[in-house]
Protein backbone atom coordinates (compact mmCIF):
# COMPACT_ATOMS: atom_id res chain seq x y z
CA UNK A 1 0.00 0.00 0.00
CA UNK A 2 2.78 2.40 1.00
CA UNK A 3 4.72 1.55 -2.14
CA UNK A 4 1.63 2.16 -4.31
CA UNK A 5 1.04 5.58 -2.75
CA UNK A 6 4.68 6.57 -3.32
CA UNK A 7 4.54 5.42 -6.93
CA UNK A 8 1.26 7.28 -7.45
CA UNK A 9 2.74 10.48 -5.94
CA UNK A 10 5.81 10.29 -8.15
CA UNK A 11 3.72 9.56 -11.22
CA UNK A 12 1.33 12.40 -10.55
CA UNK A 13 4.15 14.86 -9.86
CA UNK A 14 6.12 13.82 -12.93
CA UNK A 15 3.24 13.76 -15.36
CA UNK A 16 1.64 16.87 -13.91
CA UNK A 17 4.94 18.70 -14.16
CA UNK A 18 5.57 17.76 -17.75
CA UNK A 19 2.03 18.63 -18.69
CA UNK A 20 2.26 22.01 -16.98
CA UNK A 21 5.46 22.88 -18.82
CA UNK A 22 4.18 21.56 -22.12
CA UNK A 23 0.86 23.36 -21.77
CA UNK A 24 2.51 26.71 -21.08
CA UNK A 25 4.79 26.41 -24.10
CA UNK A 26 2.09 25.10 -26.38
CA UNK A 27 -0.29 27.90 -25.53
CA UNK A 28 2.36 30.51 -26.26
CA UNK A 29 3.18 28.76 -29.50
CA UNK A 30 -0.47 28.40 -30.44
CA UNK A 31 -1.04 32.10 -30.01
CA UNK A 32 1.52 32.68 -32.73
CA UNK A 33 3.99 34.40 -30.47
CA UNK A 34 6.31 32.77 -28.02
CA UNK A 35 8.58 35.32 -26.38
CA UNK A 36 9.40 32.89 -23.59
CA UNK A 37 10.43 30.12 -25.91
CA UNK A 38 13.96 30.23 -27.15
CA UNK A 39 14.54 26.82 -28.69
CA UNK A 40 18.31 27.24 -28.67
CA UNK A 41 18.55 28.07 -24.96
CA UNK A 42 16.01 25.34 -24.10
CA UNK A 43 17.99 22.77 -26.09
CA UNK A 44 21.27 23.88 -24.54
CA UNK A 45 19.84 23.74 -21.02
CA UNK A 46 18.30 20.30 -21.48
CA UNK A 47 21.48 18.94 -23.09
CA UNK A 48 23.47 20.36 -20.18
CA UNK A 49 21.13 18.77 -17.65
CA UNK A 50 21.17 15.41 -19.43
CA UNK A 51 24.95 15.46 -19.68
CA UNK A 52 25.31 16.44 -16.03
CA UNK A 53 23.04 13.56 -14.97
CA UNK A 54 25.09 11.14 -17.08
CA UNK A 55 28.25 12.45 -15.48
CA UNK A 56 26.90 12.28 -11.93
CA UNK A 57 25.78 8.72 -12.54
CA UNK A 58 28.98 7.91 -14.38
CA UNK A 59 30.95 7.42 -11.19
CA UNK A 60 29.01 4.27 -10.40
CA UNK A 61 29.21 1.16 -12.49
Amino acid at each position, binding site marked *: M*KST*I*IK*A*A*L*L*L*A*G*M*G*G*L*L*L*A*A*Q*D*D*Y*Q*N*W*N*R*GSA*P*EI*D*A*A*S*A*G*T*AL*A*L*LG*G*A*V*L*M*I*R*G*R*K*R
Partner: protein
Amino acid sequence: MVSDSVQSISVSLPGAAPHPLWRMAGLTGLLAAEQLLISARTPHIGLQDARGLPGLVFSLGGWKVRLLVSLAILALLFWQSRGKRNLERMSESAVGKGVAWRWLLAHLAGILLFAGLTSILFENRLQGVAADILVLGWAAMGAAAVVLAALAFLPTAFWRAILRGTGDVWAYVLVMGLGACVLSAYTKPVWNPLARWTLMLAWLLLRPFVPAVSADLSSMLIGTHGFSVQIAPVCSGFEGIGLILAFTAGWLWFFRREWRFPRALLLIPLGVAAIWVFNAVRVAALVLIGVAGAPEIALQGFHSHAGWIAFNVVALGTCLAARRISWFTTAGSGETWLAERSEPNPVAPYLLPFLAILAAGLAAGAASSNGFEWLYALRVVTAASALWYFRDSYRALDWRVGWPAVALGGLVFLIWIGLEPLAGSARTGEPSALAHAPALARMAWLVFRVLGAVITVPIAEELAFRGFLPRRLVSADFEAVAWRTFAWAPFLISSIGFGLLHGDRWLSGTIAGMIYAFAMMRRGRIGEAAAAHAVTNALLAIYVLATGNWQLW
Protein backbone atom coordinates in the same frame (compact mmCIF):
# COMPACT_ATOMS: atom_id res chain seq x y z
CA MET B 1 49.44 7.58 -28.13
CA VAL B 2 47.05 4.75 -27.79
CA SER B 3 46.77 2.25 -25.05
CA ASP B 4 46.88 -1.21 -26.58
CA SER B 5 44.74 -2.62 -23.81
CA VAL B 6 41.91 -0.32 -24.79
CA GLN B 7 42.17 -1.25 -28.48
CA SER B 8 42.33 -4.98 -27.99
CA ILE B 9 39.26 -5.42 -25.82
CA SER B 10 36.31 -6.59 -27.85
CA VAL B 11 32.78 -6.40 -26.60
CA SER B 12 29.95 -8.55 -27.75
CA LEU B 13 27.16 -6.36 -28.97
CA PRO B 14 23.70 -6.84 -27.54
CA GLY B 15 22.48 -9.29 -30.13
CA ALA B 16 22.98 -9.21 -33.86
CA ALA B 17 19.27 -8.83 -34.51
CA PRO B 18 17.90 -5.44 -33.46
CA HIS B 19 16.43 -5.62 -29.97
CA PRO B 20 12.72 -4.72 -29.69
CA LEU B 21 13.70 -1.72 -27.58
CA TRP B 22 15.77 -0.26 -30.41
CA ARG B 23 12.91 -0.86 -32.82
CA MET B 24 10.56 0.96 -30.43
CA ALA B 25 13.07 3.79 -30.10
CA GLY B 26 13.37 3.98 -33.89
CA LEU B 27 9.59 4.08 -34.27
CA THR B 28 9.23 6.79 -31.61
CA GLY B 29 12.09 8.81 -33.09
CA LEU B 30 10.60 8.64 -36.59
CA LEU B 31 7.11 9.67 -35.44
CA ALA B 32 8.47 12.45 -33.20
CA ALA B 33 10.65 13.85 -36.01
CA GLU B 34 7.74 13.80 -38.46
CA GLN B 35 5.44 15.43 -35.92
CA LEU B 36 8.02 18.16 -35.25
CA LEU B 37 8.62 18.79 -38.95
CA ILE B 38 4.92 19.03 -39.78
CA SER B 39 4.10 21.04 -36.67
CA ALA B 40 6.91 23.54 -37.22
CA ARG B 41 5.57 24.36 -40.68
CA THR B 42 1.92 24.54 -39.62
CA PRO B 43 0.30 27.94 -39.04
CA HIS B 44 -1.62 26.87 -35.90
CA ILE B 45 -3.17 30.31 -35.50
CA GLY B 46 -5.00 29.83 -38.84
CA LEU B 47 -7.82 27.92 -37.17
CA GLN B 48 -8.30 30.41 -34.33
CA ASP B 49 -11.70 31.60 -35.58
CA ALA B 50 -12.75 28.39 -37.34
CA ARG B 51 -16.12 26.77 -36.62
CA GLY B 52 -17.27 23.14 -36.65
CA LEU B 53 -14.71 20.35 -36.58
CA PRO B 54 -11.77 22.62 -37.58
CA GLY B 55 -12.61 24.82 -34.57
CA LEU B 56 -12.66 21.72 -32.38
CA VAL B 57 -9.21 20.74 -33.70
CA PHE B 58 -7.87 24.15 -32.63
CA SER B 59 -9.44 24.01 -29.17
CA LEU B 60 -8.10 20.49 -28.62
CA GLY B 61 -4.59 21.63 -29.51
CA GLY B 62 -3.52 21.89 -25.88
CA TRP B 63 -4.89 18.43 -25.19
CA LYS B 64 -2.82 17.05 -28.06
CA VAL B 65 0.35 17.93 -26.16
CA ARG B 66 -1.08 16.53 -22.93
CA LEU B 67 -1.99 13.32 -24.72
CA LEU B 68 1.47 12.98 -26.24
CA VAL B 69 3.17 13.56 -22.89
CA SER B 70 0.83 11.09 -21.18
CA LEU B 71 1.44 8.46 -23.87
CA ALA B 72 5.21 8.90 -23.61
CA ILE B 73 5.17 8.41 -19.83
CA LEU B 74 2.72 5.57 -20.14
CA ALA B 75 5.06 3.78 -22.55
CA LEU B 76 8.01 4.39 -20.22
CA LEU B 77 6.17 3.07 -17.17
CA PHE B 78 4.88 0.10 -19.08
CA TRP B 79 8.45 -0.69 -20.05
CA GLN B 80 9.61 -0.30 -16.46
CA SER B 81 6.88 -2.47 -14.96
CA ARG B 82 5.99 -5.27 -17.32
CA GLY B 83 7.18 -4.47 -20.82
CA LYS B 84 10.77 -5.48 -20.19
CA ARG B 85 9.76 -8.89 -18.89
CA ASN B 86 7.34 -9.40 -21.75
CA LEU B 87 9.85 -8.35 -24.37
CA GLU B 88 12.45 -10.69 -22.94
CA ARG B 89 9.98 -13.55 -23.17
CA MET B 90 9.24 -12.95 -26.80
CA SER B 91 11.25 -14.93 -29.30
CA GLU B 92 13.81 -13.07 -31.35
CA SER B 93 12.17 -14.45 -34.47
CA ALA B 94 9.14 -12.29 -33.80
CA VAL B 95 11.19 -9.12 -34.02
CA GLY B 96 14.29 -10.22 -35.89
CA LYS B 97 13.00 -9.90 -39.44
CA GLY B 98 14.24 -6.37 -40.00
CA VAL B 99 12.22 -3.35 -41.01
CA ALA B 100 9.24 -4.15 -43.25
CA TRP B 101 10.03 -1.83 -46.14
CA ARG B 102 6.63 -2.19 -47.80
CA TRP B 103 4.89 -0.92 -44.66
CA LEU B 104 7.50 1.80 -44.26
CA LEU B 105 6.96 3.04 -47.83
CA ALA B 106 3.20 2.99 -47.23
CA HIS B 107 3.78 4.97 -44.02
CA LEU B 108 5.91 7.55 -45.84
CA ALA B 109 3.21 7.96 -48.49
CA GLY B 110 0.62 8.29 -45.71
CA ILE B 111 2.61 10.88 -43.77
CA LEU B 112 3.19 12.96 -46.91
CA LEU B 113 -0.55 12.93 -47.56
CA PHE B 114 -1.16 13.81 -43.90
CA ALA B 115 1.28 16.74 -44.16
CA GLY B 116 -0.55 18.00 -47.27
CA LEU B 117 -3.94 17.73 -45.56
CA THR B 118 -2.52 19.50 -42.47
CA SER B 119 -1.38 22.37 -44.63
CA ILE B 120 -4.82 22.70 -46.28
CA LEU B 121 -6.66 22.33 -42.96
CA PHE B 122 -4.65 24.89 -40.99
CA GLU B 123 -4.74 27.45 -43.77
CA ASN B 124 -8.52 27.32 -43.22
CA ARG B 125 -9.26 27.32 -46.95
CA LEU B 126 -12.39 25.17 -46.79
CA GLN B 127 -15.63 25.97 -45.00
CA GLY B 128 -18.75 24.09 -43.83
CA VAL B 129 -19.21 20.40 -44.61
CA ALA B 130 -16.14 20.28 -46.83
CA ALA B 131 -14.00 21.44 -43.91
CA ASP B 132 -15.57 18.83 -41.59
CA ILE B 133 -14.89 16.07 -44.14
CA LEU B 134 -11.33 17.34 -44.43
CA VAL B 135 -10.87 17.06 -40.65
CA LEU B 136 -12.17 13.48 -40.64
CA GLY B 137 -9.90 12.52 -43.54
CA TRP B 138 -6.96 14.30 -41.87
CA ALA B 139 -7.47 12.45 -38.57
CA ALA B 140 -7.94 9.08 -40.32
CA MET B 141 -4.81 9.60 -42.40
CA GLY B 142 -2.79 10.54 -39.30
CA ALA B 143 -3.96 7.42 -37.46
CA ALA B 144 -3.29 5.23 -40.51
CA ALA B 145 0.24 6.65 -40.83
CA VAL B 146 0.99 5.81 -37.18
CA VAL B 147 -0.35 2.25 -37.57
CA LEU B 148 1.66 1.73 -40.77
CA ALA B 149 4.82 2.93 -39.03
CA ALA B 150 4.17 0.62 -36.08
CA LEU B 151 3.79 -2.35 -38.44
CA ALA B 152 6.91 -1.33 -40.37
CA PHE B 153 9.12 -1.46 -37.29
CA LEU B 154 7.58 -4.44 -35.48
CA PRO B 155 5.36 -7.28 -36.71
CA THR B 156 1.71 -7.66 -35.78
CA ALA B 157 2.54 -10.70 -33.59
CA PHE B 158 4.69 -8.42 -31.41
CA TRP B 159 1.92 -5.85 -30.94
CA ARG B 160 -0.61 -8.61 -30.13
CA ALA B 161 1.76 -10.02 -27.50
CA ILE B 162 2.30 -6.55 -26.04
CA LEU B 163 -1.45 -5.95 -25.70
CA ARG B 164 -1.97 -9.38 -24.13
CA GLY B 165 0.85 -8.85 -21.65
CA THR B 166 -0.11 -5.44 -20.34
CA GLY B 167 -2.58 -6.64 -17.75
CA ASP B 168 -3.93 -3.83 -15.59
CA VAL B 169 -0.95 -1.47 -16.00
CA TRP B 170 -2.80 0.49 -18.68
CA ALA B 171 -5.72 1.14 -16.36
CA TYR B 172 -3.56 2.51 -13.52
CA VAL B 173 -1.47 4.70 -15.77
CA LEU B 174 -4.43 5.99 -17.75
CA VAL B 175 -6.23 7.01 -14.55
CA MET B 176 -3.12 8.82 -13.28
CA GLY B 177 -2.55 10.36 -16.71
CA LEU B 178 -6.09 11.70 -16.87
CA GLY B 179 -5.74 13.01 -13.31
CA ALA B 180 -2.53 14.83 -14.22
CA CYS B 181 -4.15 16.22 -17.42
CA VAL B 182 -7.13 17.56 -15.50
CA LEU B 183 -4.92 19.02 -12.75
CA SER B 184 -2.70 20.81 -15.24
CA ALA B 185 -5.63 22.04 -17.32
CA TYR B 186 -7.45 23.60 -14.37
CA THR B 187 -4.58 25.18 -12.49
CA LYS B 188 -4.86 28.47 -14.36
CA PRO B 189 -6.75 30.21 -11.51
CA VAL B 190 -3.57 29.74 -9.42
CA TRP B 191 -1.44 31.64 -11.93
CA ASN B 192 -2.49 35.16 -10.93
CA PRO B 193 -1.99 34.74 -7.16
CA LEU B 194 1.33 33.05 -7.84
CA ALA B 195 2.41 35.94 -10.08
CA ARG B 196 1.45 38.43 -7.30
CA TRP B 197 3.59 36.56 -4.75
CA THR B 198 6.45 36.49 -7.26
CA LEU B 199 6.11 40.26 -7.72
CA MET B 200 6.17 40.88 -3.98
CA LEU B 201 9.22 38.71 -3.39
CA ALA B 202 11.09 40.32 -6.30
CA TRP B 203 10.23 43.75 -4.83
CA LEU B 204 11.57 42.71 -1.41
CA LEU B 205 14.78 41.43 -2.99
CA LEU B 206 15.27 44.65 -4.97
CA ARG B 207 14.60 47.11 -2.15
CA PRO B 208 18.13 47.03 -0.61
CA PHE B 209 19.75 47.69 -4.00
CA VAL B 210 17.21 49.98 -5.68
CA PRO B 211 15.42 52.09 -3.03
CA ALA B 212 13.24 53.75 -5.69
CA VAL B 213 11.78 50.46 -6.89
CA SER B 214 8.01 50.16 -6.83
CA ALA B 215 5.61 47.27 -7.43
CA ASP B 216 1.99 47.69 -8.51
CA LEU B 217 -0.22 44.68 -7.82
CA SER B 218 -3.05 45.88 -10.07
CA SER B 219 -0.96 46.34 -13.21
CA MET B 220 1.71 43.82 -12.10
CA LEU B 221 4.43 46.32 -12.98
CA ILE B 222 7.72 46.36 -11.11
CA GLY B 223 10.66 48.73 -11.56
CA THR B 224 11.51 52.39 -11.48
CA HIS B 225 10.45 55.40 -13.57
CA GLY B 226 13.32 54.64 -15.94
CA PHE B 227 12.80 50.90 -16.36
CA SER B 228 9.94 48.61 -15.42
CA VAL B 229 8.59 45.23 -16.48
CA GLN B 230 5.22 43.56 -16.22
CA ILE B 231 4.91 40.11 -14.64
CA ALA B 232 2.53 38.23 -16.89
CA PRO B 233 0.72 35.18 -15.45
CA VAL B 234 2.96 32.95 -17.62
CA CYS B 235 5.97 34.54 -15.89
CA SER B 236 4.69 33.38 -12.51
CA GLY B 237 7.17 30.52 -12.63
CA PHE B 238 4.70 27.86 -13.71
CA GLU B 239 6.92 26.44 -16.42
CA GLY B 240 9.87 26.13 -14.06
CA ILE B 241 7.68 24.48 -11.44
CA GLY B 242 6.43 21.99 -14.04
CA LEU B 243 9.94 21.16 -15.19
CA ILE B 244 11.22 20.74 -11.63
CA LEU B 245 8.28 18.50 -10.75
CA ALA B 246 9.04 16.31 -13.74
CA PHE B 247 12.79 16.22 -13.16
CA THR B 248 12.64 15.51 -9.43
CA ALA B 249 9.96 12.86 -9.80
CA GLY B 250 11.94 11.22 -12.62
CA TRP B 251 15.17 11.31 -10.63
CA LEU B 252 13.52 9.76 -7.57
CA TRP B 253 11.82 7.13 -9.72
CA PHE B 254 14.82 5.99 -11.73
CA PHE B 255 17.20 5.91 -8.77
CA ARG B 256 14.56 4.82 -6.24
CA ARG B 257 16.83 2.23 -4.65
CA GLU B 258 19.05 5.03 -3.31
CA TRP B 259 16.30 7.00 -1.59
CA ARG B 260 14.60 6.58 1.76
CA PHE B 261 10.87 6.74 1.05
CA PRO B 262 8.51 8.35 1.87
CA ARG B 263 10.73 11.11 3.28
CA ALA B 264 12.53 11.53 -0.07
CA LEU B 265 9.21 12.74 -1.50
CA LEU B 266 9.86 15.96 0.43
CA LEU B 267 12.43 16.80 -2.25
CA ILE B 268 9.56 17.51 -4.65
CA PRO B 269 8.02 20.43 -2.69
CA LEU B 270 11.53 21.59 -1.75
CA GLY B 271 12.49 21.73 -5.42
CA VAL B 272 9.26 23.54 -6.30
CA ALA B 273 9.83 26.11 -3.54
CA ALA B 274 13.44 26.60 -4.67
CA ILE B 275 12.52 27.19 -8.33
CA TRP B 276 9.79 29.64 -7.34
CA VAL B 277 12.29 31.64 -5.24
CA PHE B 278 14.79 31.49 -8.11
CA ASN B 279 12.13 32.82 -10.46
CA ALA B 280 11.59 35.81 -8.17
CA VAL B 281 15.37 36.29 -8.06
CA ARG B 282 15.37 36.15 -11.88
CA VAL B 283 12.74 38.90 -12.06
CA ALA B 284 14.66 41.00 -9.51
CA ALA B 285 17.93 40.51 -11.42
CA LEU B 286 16.21 41.41 -14.69
CA VAL B 287 14.97 44.69 -13.21
CA LEU B 288 18.38 45.34 -11.66
CA ILE B 289 20.13 44.88 -15.02
CA GLY B 290 17.59 47.14 -16.72
CA VAL B 291 17.87 49.84 -14.06
CA ALA B 292 21.67 49.61 -14.19
CA GLY B 293 21.56 50.76 -17.81
CA ALA B 294 21.40 47.59 -19.89
CA PRO B 295 17.68 47.24 -20.72
CA GLU B 296 18.39 45.38 -23.98
CA ILE B 297 20.36 42.67 -22.16
CA ALA B 298 17.66 42.46 -19.47
CA LEU B 299 14.78 42.04 -21.90
CA GLN B 300 16.55 39.88 -24.48
CA GLY B 301 19.42 37.59 -23.52
CA PHE B 302 18.77 37.52 -19.78
CA HIS B 303 15.01 37.08 -20.16
CA SER B 304 15.28 34.01 -22.38
CA HIS B 305 18.26 32.34 -20.66
CA ALA B 306 17.96 33.05 -16.93
CA GLY B 307 14.96 30.74 -16.46
CA TRP B 308 16.83 27.81 -17.95
CA ILE B 309 19.92 28.55 -15.89
CA ALA B 310 17.74 28.61 -12.75
CA PHE B 311 16.13 25.31 -13.74
CA ASN B 312 19.53 23.63 -14.15
CA VAL B 313 20.87 25.05 -10.91
CA VAL B 314 17.82 24.01 -8.88
CA ALA B 315 17.39 20.59 -10.52
CA LEU B 316 21.00 19.53 -10.10
CA GLY B 317 21.49 21.41 -6.83
CA THR B 318 18.51 19.76 -5.14
CA CYS B 319 19.48 16.26 -6.15
CA LEU B 320 23.21 16.65 -5.53
CA ALA B 321 22.64 18.24 -2.12
CA ALA B 322 20.10 15.58 -1.15
CA ARG B 323 22.55 12.81 -2.06
CA ARG B 324 24.81 14.04 0.71
CA ILE B 325 22.10 13.99 3.39
CA SER B 326 21.76 10.55 4.92
CA TRP B 327 18.24 11.36 6.13
CA PHE B 328 17.14 11.30 2.47
CA THR B 329 19.40 8.72 0.91
CA THR B 330 21.25 5.51 1.59
CA ALA B 331 23.78 5.85 -1.21
CA GLY B 332 25.72 9.06 -0.95
CA SER B 333 26.29 9.81 2.68
CA GLY B 334 29.19 9.59 5.08
CA GLU B 335 31.88 7.07 4.29
CA THR B 336 30.07 5.81 1.19
CA TRP B 337 30.17 9.26 -0.33
CA LEU B 338 33.81 9.80 0.61
CA ALA B 339 34.75 6.44 -0.89
CA GLU B 340 32.80 7.30 -4.02
CA ARG B 341 34.51 10.69 -4.29
CA SER B 342 37.97 9.17 -4.01
CA GLU B 343 37.49 7.20 -7.24
CA PRO B 344 37.98 9.05 -10.52
CA ASN B 345 34.83 9.61 -12.54
CA PRO B 346 35.48 7.92 -15.92
CA VAL B 347 32.78 9.95 -17.67
CA ALA B 348 34.04 13.40 -16.63
CA PRO B 349 37.00 13.69 -19.06
CA TYR B 350 34.67 12.91 -21.96
CA LEU B 351 31.70 15.07 -20.99
CA LEU B 352 32.93 17.93 -18.84
CA PRO B 353 34.60 19.99 -21.65
CA PHE B 354 31.39 19.77 -23.69
CA LEU B 355 29.21 20.60 -20.66
CA ALA B 356 31.53 23.53 -19.90
CA ILE B 357 30.83 24.90 -23.39
CA LEU B 358 27.08 24.51 -22.89
CA ALA B 359 27.14 26.15 -19.45
CA ALA B 360 29.31 29.00 -20.70
CA GLY B 361 26.99 29.35 -23.70
CA LEU B 362 24.00 29.79 -21.38
CA ALA B 363 25.86 32.35 -19.28
CA ALA B 364 27.11 34.22 -22.35
CA GLY B 365 23.62 34.07 -23.87
CA ALA B 366 22.14 35.61 -20.72
CA ALA B 367 24.50 38.55 -21.14
CA SER B 368 23.76 38.98 -24.86
CA SER B 369 21.62 41.51 -26.67
CA ASN B 370 20.32 41.76 -30.24
CA GLY B 371 21.26 38.12 -30.72
CA PHE B 372 24.99 38.85 -30.46
CA GLU B 373 27.10 37.03 -27.90
CA TRP B 374 29.87 39.35 -26.77
CA LEU B 375 31.12 36.86 -24.18
CA TYR B 376 31.85 34.07 -26.67
CA ALA B 377 35.40 33.89 -25.25
CA LEU B 378 33.87 32.39 -22.08
CA ARG B 379 33.05 29.20 -24.01
CA VAL B 380 36.66 28.90 -25.20
CA VAL B 381 38.21 29.59 -21.81
CA THR B 382 35.96 27.17 -19.87
CA ALA B 383 36.39 24.36 -22.42
CA ALA B 384 40.17 24.89 -22.56
CA SER B 385 40.30 24.84 -18.74
CA ALA B 386 38.36 21.55 -18.59
CA LEU B 387 40.58 20.00 -21.29
CA TRP B 388 43.69 21.13 -19.42
CA TYR B 389 42.35 19.74 -16.14
CA PHE B 390 41.87 16.28 -17.66
CA ARG B 391 45.02 16.36 -19.80
CA ASP B 392 46.44 13.25 -18.14
CA SER B 393 43.33 11.22 -19.03
CA TYR B 394 43.66 12.19 -22.70
CA ARG B 395 47.21 10.88 -22.98
CA ALA B 396 45.77 7.36 -23.10
CA LEU B 397 43.71 8.18 -26.21
CA ASP B 398 44.90 7.91 -29.79
CA TRP B 399 45.25 11.43 -31.20
CA ARG B 400 47.11 10.47 -34.38
CA VAL B 401 45.70 11.98 -37.57
CA GLY B 402 45.85 10.82 -41.19
CA TRP B 403 45.07 12.61 -44.45
CA PRO B 404 41.70 10.83 -44.86
CA ALA B 405 40.47 12.73 -41.79
CA VAL B 406 41.33 16.03 -43.47
CA ALA B 407 39.52 14.93 -46.61
CA LEU B 408 36.46 13.85 -44.60
CA GLY B 409 36.44 17.23 -42.86
CA GLY B 410 36.45 18.91 -46.27
CA LEU B 411 33.62 16.65 -47.42
CA VAL B 412 31.50 17.65 -44.40
CA PHE B 413 32.18 21.32 -45.22
CA LEU B 414 30.89 20.84 -48.79
CA ILE B 415 27.80 18.99 -47.53
CA TRP B 416 27.18 21.71 -44.93
CA ILE B 417 27.28 24.46 -47.55
CA GLY B 418 25.26 22.37 -50.00
CA LEU B 419 22.47 21.72 -47.50
CA GLU B 420 22.37 25.29 -46.21
CA PRO B 421 19.25 26.19 -48.25
CA LEU B 422 17.34 23.52 -46.28
CA ALA B 423 18.08 25.34 -43.00
CA GLY B 424 15.83 28.15 -44.19
CA SER B 425 17.90 30.89 -42.60
CA ALA B 426 18.29 34.13 -44.52
CA ARG B 427 21.73 35.43 -45.36
CA THR B 428 22.93 37.82 -42.69
CA GLY B 429 25.98 40.00 -42.69
CA GLU B 430 28.34 40.73 -39.83
CA PRO B 431 26.38 41.56 -36.64
CA SER B 432 26.15 45.33 -36.33
CA ALA B 433 27.35 45.21 -32.70
CA LEU B 434 30.59 43.61 -33.90
CA ALA B 435 30.94 45.71 -37.04
CA HIS B 436 30.69 48.95 -35.02
CA ALA B 437 32.93 47.79 -32.18
CA PRO B 438 36.46 49.21 -31.65
CA ALA B 439 38.99 47.46 -33.88
CA LEU B 440 40.80 45.75 -30.99
CA ALA B 441 37.58 44.38 -29.45
CA ARG B 442 36.38 43.17 -32.86
CA MET B 443 39.68 41.45 -33.56
CA ALA B 444 39.76 39.83 -30.09
CA TRP B 445 36.22 38.51 -30.55
CA LEU B 446 37.08 37.08 -33.98
CA VAL B 447 40.24 35.41 -32.66
CA PHE B 448 38.32 33.68 -29.86
CA ARG B 449 35.49 32.72 -32.24
CA VAL B 450 37.94 31.03 -34.61
CA LEU B 451 39.92 29.42 -31.77
CA GLY B 452 36.70 28.01 -30.33
CA ALA B 453 35.49 26.72 -33.71
CA VAL B 454 38.78 25.10 -34.70
CA ILE B 455 40.23 23.85 -31.40
CA THR B 456 38.04 23.61 -28.30
CA VAL B 457 34.67 22.81 -29.92
CA PRO B 458 35.91 19.93 -32.13
CA ILE B 459 37.84 18.29 -29.28
CA ALA B 460 35.06 18.71 -26.69
CA GLU B 461 32.25 17.61 -29.02
CA GLU B 462 34.16 14.63 -30.41
CA LEU B 463 35.03 13.42 -26.92
CA ALA B 464 31.33 13.58 -25.99
CA PHE B 465 29.62 12.42 -29.21
CA ARG B 466 32.17 9.96 -30.57
CA GLY B 467 34.37 9.07 -27.61
CA PHE B 468 31.65 8.62 -24.99
CA LEU B 469 28.03 8.44 -26.20
CA PRO B 470 28.15 5.62 -28.79
CA ARG B 471 30.36 3.46 -26.55
CA ARG B 472 28.13 4.18 -23.52
CA LEU B 473 25.13 3.07 -25.57
CA VAL B 474 26.87 -0.24 -26.23
CA SER B 475 27.81 -0.86 -22.59
CA ALA B 476 27.60 0.83 -19.19
CA ASP B 477 31.29 -0.02 -18.85
CA PHE B 478 32.02 2.14 -21.86
CA GLU B 479 35.78 2.21 -21.32
CA ALA B 480 35.91 -1.50 -22.13
CA VAL B 481 34.26 -0.96 -25.51
CA ALA B 482 36.78 -0.90 -28.36
CA TRP B 483 36.95 2.40 -30.27
CA ARG B 484 36.29 0.62 -33.57
CA THR B 485 33.09 -1.01 -32.31
CA PHE B 486 30.20 -0.37 -34.67
CA ALA B 487 26.53 -0.87 -33.89
CA TRP B 488 23.73 0.79 -35.80
CA ALA B 489 21.68 2.13 -32.89
CA PRO B 490 24.56 3.85 -31.02
CA PHE B 491 25.87 5.18 -34.36
CA LEU B 492 22.49 6.65 -35.32
CA ILE B 493 21.50 7.94 -31.87
CA SER B 494 24.82 9.72 -31.26
CA SER B 495 24.80 11.21 -34.78
CA ILE B 496 21.18 12.39 -34.52
CA GLY B 497 21.90 13.84 -31.05
CA PHE B 498 24.86 15.70 -32.55
CA GLY B 499 22.61 16.88 -35.39
CA LEU B 500 19.90 18.16 -33.04
CA LEU B 501 22.57 20.21 -31.30
CA HIS B 502 22.76 22.28 -34.48
CA GLY B 503 19.12 23.43 -34.46
CA ASP B 504 17.82 24.25 -37.94
CA ARG B 505 20.87 22.57 -39.44
CA TRP B 506 20.00 19.24 -37.79
CA LEU B 507 20.21 17.30 -41.06
CA SER B 508 23.67 18.65 -41.92
CA GLY B 509 24.70 18.05 -38.31
CA THR B 510 23.47 14.45 -38.36
CA ILE B 511 25.32 13.67 -41.60
CA ALA B 512 28.44 15.38 -40.20
CA GLY B 513 28.13 13.27 -37.04
CA MET B 514 27.97 10.09 -39.11
CA ILE B 515 31.05 11.07 -41.12
CA TYR B 516 33.03 11.98 -38.00
CA ALA B 517 31.98 8.65 -36.45
CA PHE B 518 33.22 6.91 -39.59
CA ALA B 519 36.49 8.84 -39.31
CA MET B 520 36.93 7.61 -35.75
CA MET B 521 35.85 4.01 -36.25
CA ARG B 522 37.96 3.54 -39.40
CA ARG B 523 41.10 3.22 -37.30
CA GLY B 524 39.74 3.61 -33.78
CA ARG B 525 41.33 7.03 -33.31
CA ILE B 526 39.53 9.91 -31.63
CA GLY B 527 42.16 12.19 -33.22
CA GLU B 528 40.80 11.44 -36.70
CA ALA B 529 37.28 12.58 -35.72
CA ALA B 530 38.54 15.70 -33.94
CA ALA B 531 40.78 16.60 -36.90
CA ALA B 532 37.96 16.10 -39.42
CA HIS B 533 35.69 18.28 -37.26
CA ALA B 534 38.39 20.94 -36.91
CA VAL B 535 38.96 21.02 -40.69
CA THR B 536 35.23 21.48 -41.31
CA ASN B 537 35.01 24.30 -38.79
CA ALA B 538 38.18 25.97 -40.11
CA LEU B 539 36.82 25.91 -43.67
CA LEU B 540 33.49 27.28 -42.42
CA ALA B 541 35.31 30.07 -40.58
CA ILE B 542 37.22 31.01 -43.76
CA TYR B 543 33.98 30.83 -45.76
CA VAL B 544 32.09 33.06 -43.31
CA LEU B 545 34.85 35.65 -43.12
CA ALA B 546 35.47 35.63 -46.88
CA THR B 547 31.88 35.69 -48.11
CA GLY B 548 30.05 37.39 -45.24
CA ASN B 549 27.59 34.50 -44.73
CA TRP B 550 27.45 35.09 -40.98
CA GLN B 551 24.27 33.06 -40.54
CA LEU B 552 26.54 30.00 -40.66
CA TRP B 553 28.10 31.05 -37.35
